[in-house]
């Protein structure tokens, strides 16, 4: 079985210099919906607003008329079993600026990602993110949004794309994780996340760079859960060294991160393997 790549003819294809963000379509559309919909349109998924947020970034960049790099969003799906045409038609229905669809089968989706020169892969499934990280593809978790999403074509103020980086990946020495009792599999993911971190930060940094500190359509948040304040400081310095502009920063010093995540409501979350979450906690 082969990977199918379908071009979205409704959308102008971007140049090869654009940064490619591959998004798993499971968050963008609700593929398991029970409610019957009009034939070819899938309901919006819990992470639908991510695509809108990236579009807003591209629009602002285009309005600035500069040579800033744009962001090319492609949809990736693994084992869709016949819903391919619905995904394509729904994309067109909602007018999403998605340039291509990459329909994979079986376990070969990381190879497909590598073949399509993806700069960043986003999925709601931690297992997919781990697989990608272990193949050295920068990847992060796509988070469900609980901000109310308007139905239909109503104009909606798009909240800025919020990206959460792990200060622990950037500043926490491994010995501390071992002391804290994390398992070897978790440490492996941590290491894989650390290895891709620079590339991930580069993509996010590139997205953030053209905008000022206020009214940016992209916000970068750095959070240390386990690290001490000096390890958090180390993470902040690392980010600065990479030229990555950080807007918000949190040092939790062991406090539970769920209540804070509810406030931040990230779209994209750097997965560091330290938390046994099968999904990001319901941000209600």
């Amino acid at each position, binding site marked *: 079985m082969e990977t199918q790549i379908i071009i979205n003819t409704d959308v102008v294809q971007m140049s090869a210099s654009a940064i490619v963000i591959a998004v798993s379509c499971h968050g963008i559309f609700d593929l398991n919906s029970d409610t019957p919909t009009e034939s070819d349109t899938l309901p919006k998924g819990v992470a639908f607003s991510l695509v809108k947020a990236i579009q807003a970034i591209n629009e602002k960049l285009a309005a600035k008329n500069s040579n800033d790099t744009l962001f090319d969003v492609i949809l990736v799906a693994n084992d869709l079993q016949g819903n391919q045409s619905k995904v394509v038609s729904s994309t067109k229905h909602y007018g999403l600026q998605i340039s291509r669809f990459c329909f994979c089968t079986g376990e070969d989706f990381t190879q497909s990602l590598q073949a399509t020169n993806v700069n960043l892969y986003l999925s709601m499934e931690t297992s997919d993110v781990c697989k990608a990280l272990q193949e050295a593809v920068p990847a992060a978790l796509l988070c469900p949004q609980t901000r109310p999403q308007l139905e239909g074509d109503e104009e909606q103020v798009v909240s800025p794309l919020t990206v959460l980086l792990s200060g622990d990946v950037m500043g926490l020495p491994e010995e501390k994780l071992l002391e804290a009792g994390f398992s070897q599999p978790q440490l492996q993911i941590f290491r894989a996340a650390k290895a891709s971190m620079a590339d991930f930060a580069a993509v996010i940094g590139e997205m953030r760079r053209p905008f000022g500190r206020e009214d940016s359509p992209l916000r970068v948040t750095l959070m240390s859960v386990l690290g001490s*304040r000096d390890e958090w400081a180390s993470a902040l310095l690392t980010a600065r060294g990479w*030229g990555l502009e950080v807007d918000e920063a949190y040092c939790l010093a062991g406090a539970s991160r769920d209540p804070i995540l509810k406030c931040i409501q990230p779209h994209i979350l750097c997965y560091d393997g330290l938390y046994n979450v099968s999904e990001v906690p319901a941000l209600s």
Partner: protein
Amino acid sequence: MSGSNIARLPPPLSAPAAVSGSSSTARPALPLPAAPAIGGKSSSHTARKAETNSKFPNPKNCVTIAVSSRVLFNMDVEQQIYEQKGMEDYLTYQVEHETEPLKPGPAFPFVKAVEEVNMRLRELYPDSEEVFDVVLMTNNHANVGLRLINSVNHYNLLVERFCMTGGNSPIGYLKAYHTNLYLSADAIKVREALDEGITSATMFSLDKVSEVPETELRVAFDGDAVLFDDEAERIFKTQGLDKFFEHEKALADQPLDHGPLKGFLEALGKLQRKFYAKGQRLECPIRTYLVTARSAASSGTRALKTLRSWGLEIDEALFLAGAPKGPMLEKIRPHIFFDDQMFHVTGASRMGTVAAHVPYGIAQRVPQKPPKHNK
């Protein structure tokens, strides 16, 4: 106060040298720099941490005090730059002065005293999570973070939790940390917090600060509209003093409803009882004061009975019968004094007491003027 505990300044946190920041190709890849060298924590901080068996307490169990950066430290100069020249210049200034520790702000002595109490608590209850936890909760952009960390390190403060919201409202985060008390220089945020049921007060920079004890935390409270609700205050302001006396006499046995600081007094009382339980009533390092314009002979009764009905103790109750609070506070030397009326807050500040304004109740809507009669 600031001179007593200064540890040697650790080597400055500075950005690693020469990392290329510009690239605009399709796959920008910045080289991963070697981990920047951070100066080790000053030795006494490390020692203190080891002593305190530093497992970070769960916010649910501790008494969480959130302080903004402008009340923990003095940022008058920086604030002026922000107001006059804008965000960019302000941030540039902060980063340029990153290795210069900030000077202490109005909440600094309070935080230091809180840490002393924690040390004493840990001596008696090494494994307990019922301690104070101070969180730095600021609206600031993350770029200011390093200067704040350097400043915290410089004074050897045990602040481990930081929330830099980069312009977003702190309210959600205050709730997430189960905040028991929020101190900020921004009156608008304080009001928002109070509206959301979070105990909160506004603090101001001081020109003159009296010496306060280092080994005993002293917290002073006004009564009406601070510990108690503003029921009686309303009567006084709308119907006058005589009506107030009548009302309070008639209802002497009926407890007042609670005010915004009741919960904090309760939290302090809980910690005090931990000392009493170990036979340390006389040496308890927390002392609370009621400083009210009510008079002992009459309207004070209802205040005391209310406290009793809540099962709360207060160490000293000072009924001033309308006299100015400044001189009394100067004698008490509390680390912080909470009042709902700016008149009293300014009066106290003029005499060197750190006073915090609680923007609650009718006093905020009625024009302030000094009381003419005895209460």
